[in-house]
């Protein structure tokens, strides 16, 4: 819009001051008890208050300045938001580039452990490959699995972590009680999780949207409570330890003549196992991605997307919604089960505290922030959230600024929650909100997410 067509703008000081004063007063009211005082138990276990009025002053002043500036410099003519445009030619080219970008990404991931090993040596790279590489990839896998349920089929599942738990406990229990090897347990864990996916999916077939979300949340919590309290089987809160470590298709990663290193004529190093686990998760994640992308073009994948857009239309066209929903639940759960088995093998310890609602919410945040339905977006969001929160652990330097009591990791979920709110308000469809139709005439054209109608979920 040409700037010249406006009258010279007058800075509206009065309304800005009033608005800022209101916002500051609200902030004072919000800050008054929670920020101003901290209730701490003293030596005799009595609560005493420690005041923090300087923090309150700082918060109120910040809000005042921000609100003042935002009113002062806000556009005075509130034009109607521009209608969503169809993607420009550049956007189409970008999605074409995404193919090369993802191939490049895969190449980078394959090279990642080797580069880390070269940069930091065998001991220093352990943290990067294990905490960053494997953990992020497990979450990418979980994100892609949940993406089938939430992104493709449009069924909001808040209890997804239950299937992750089923996978992890399957491997933990089968390997410690019956001595099954990881390679037998992996498919079994996946299948058991898929079975539970169908079991929990079946009763909720009639539910949609918010109700479905709450019931899946309830199921997730029930499974966690059972895992906590069924001590005879699961050892309760203390969890199951000494889960057998992963082997290289039967060759254990141990020092000595029977180990992996001796067999291939290498010097023994514990990092071999971690690198192998990294490639295993990478392979499983890529398999998930490949299967999802292929399924999208099959009738079942199209039925999922049709279900997401409009269930009633879907049903009136003769699509069997029962099968459609159950396959989505089962496949999503299968992926979570596989990821759970890998998780148990990585930690060699599982306990119910790893499978709380917060974990479900984190995975959901990954899917939502990435853009439901977008594989690349989910991978980017997982890297951002999990990698970012791991990086927070690295920020010990901040302690020098904020004092020793400052622990950056406790801000992790605070930021995640805030990001979810901001993302929904700013881009309700996530980072990558472009839909690529799986069926098209002549030429594949991506659709801006805002143009796609989304039904009741």
């Amino acid at each position, binding site marked *: 819009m040409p700037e010249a067509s406006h009258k010279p703008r007058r800075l509206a000081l009065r309304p800005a001051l009033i608005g800022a004063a209101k916002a500051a007063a609200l902030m004072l009211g*919000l800050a008054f008890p*929670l920020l101003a005082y901290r*209730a701490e138990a003293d030596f005799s276990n009595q609560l005493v*208050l420690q005041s923090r009025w300087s923090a309150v002053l700082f918060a109120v002043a910040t809000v005042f300045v921000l609100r003042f500036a935002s009113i002062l410099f806000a556009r005075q003519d509130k034009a109607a938001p521009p209608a969503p445009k169809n993607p420009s030619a550049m956007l189409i080219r970008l999605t074409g580039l995404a193919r090369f970008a993802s191939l490049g990404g895969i190449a980078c991931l394959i090279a990642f452990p080797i580069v880390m090993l070269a940069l930091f040596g065998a001991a220093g790279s352990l943290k990067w490959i294990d905490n960053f590489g494997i953990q992020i990839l497990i979450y990418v896998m979980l994100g892609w699995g949940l993406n089938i349920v939430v992104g493709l089929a449009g069924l909001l599942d808040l209890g997804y972590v239950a299937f992750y738990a089923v996978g992890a406990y399957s491997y933990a229990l089968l390997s410690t009680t019956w001595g099954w090897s990881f390679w037998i347990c992996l498919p079994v864990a996946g299948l058991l999780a898929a079975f539970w996916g169908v079991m929990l999916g079946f009763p909720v077939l009639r539910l949609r*949207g918010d109700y479905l979300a709450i019931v899946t949340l309830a199921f997730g919590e029930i499974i966690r*409570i059972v895992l906590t309290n069924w001590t005879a089987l699961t050892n309760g809160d203390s969890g199951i330890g000494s889960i057998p470590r992963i082997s290289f298709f039967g060759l254990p990663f141990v020092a000595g003549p029977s180990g992996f290193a001796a067999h291939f004529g290498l010097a023994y190093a514990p990092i071999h196992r971690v690198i192998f686990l990294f490639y295993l998760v990478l392979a499983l994640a890529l398999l998930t991605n490949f299967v999802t992308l292929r399924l999208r073009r099959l009738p079942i994948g199209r039925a999922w997307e049709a279900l997401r857009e409009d269930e009633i239309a879907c049903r009136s066209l003769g699509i069997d919604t029962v099968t459609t929903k159950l396959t989505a639940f089962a496949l999503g759960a299968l992926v979570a089960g596989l990821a759970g088995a890998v998780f148990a093998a990585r930690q060699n310890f599982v306990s119910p505290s790893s499978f709380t609602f917060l974990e479900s919410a984190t995975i959901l945040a990954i899917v939502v922030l990435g853009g439901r339905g977008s594989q690349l977006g989910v991978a980017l969001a997982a890297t951002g959230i999990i990698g970012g929160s791991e990086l927070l652990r690295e920020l010990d330097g901040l302690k020098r600024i904020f004092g020793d009591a400052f622990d950056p990791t*406790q801000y992790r979920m605070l930021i995640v929650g805030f990001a979810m709110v901001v993302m*929904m308000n700013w881009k309700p469809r996530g980072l990558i909100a472009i839909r690529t139709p799986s069926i098209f005439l002549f030429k594949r054209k991506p659709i801006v997410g805002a143009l796609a109608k989304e039904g009741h979920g």
Partner: protein
Amino acid sequence: MEIFLQQLINGVTLGSIYGLIAIGYTMVFGIIGMVNFAHGDVFMVSTFIALIAFLALTQILGATSLPFCFIAVLIGAMVLTSLWSYMIERLAYRRLRGSFRLAPLISAIGMSIFLSNLVYVLQGPRNKSMPPLFNDVIQVTQGGGYDVTLSVKQILIVAVTALLLAGFWLLVQKTSLGRAQRACEQDSRMAALLGIDVDRTISLTFVIGAALAAVAGVLYMLYYGVVNSSDGFIPGVKAFTAAVLGGIGSLPGAVLGGLLIGLIETFWSAYFSSDYKDVAAFSILAVTLIFMPSGLFGRPDVEKV
């Protein structure tokens, strides 16, 4: 029989707390059709506000009269919690009206995580426990193997709940605000055409819901005397269960549902296993939604194409 009577008393006490929280869920769902997932955490925030306000009154201002403190804390917590709820509605939900259906829910989940972690950061991870107040106990039955007791606390909780619910009922039924609220619930577009400020009414709905949750928070603090920043989730889900059981959108349903959930939970703990008492509540939620989605008093959900 004595155990039954005792559990009945405990169940009604717990149920009134759930009922107060459930009203917030049911009102918001009635008016904008979303599950305000952060409501449980608003309740948790209010318990912290109540705790700190009580400590500030007794330690800094040196107030000694217990009834005065109780009323001051109750009013203070109601006002300050309302501010939180108002802020949440403005920042997290208002822009999402008319967006696709899952957007407000996801925003609410984000808000819930944000609130519980904010309190965690601001107040620390430890449980906060308060000195027990109103400790007098009345013996209801004596002799036999089991004495049934009724504490002053419990009477106070039920009485305050009843009083506030009566006031709330008058507010919804008799005032112009309540009329506007009910009109928006029936048809917000029509209400807007008739000159009702829908945005303001929705804000007020959030504020009223939060004020009642704050009452629940004060009573919870009084009853249990201990709170933690993660304590919003489970009571929140249970209160939501209560709202669903009573029929979401129905105010008497929410209170009745709350009482039922409170009773079921205490009887389950007494006769079966207290480890699995949350499983009981969650199972009721699932079973109600699957077999009786409109609850006890709810209107059936008719979908027009």
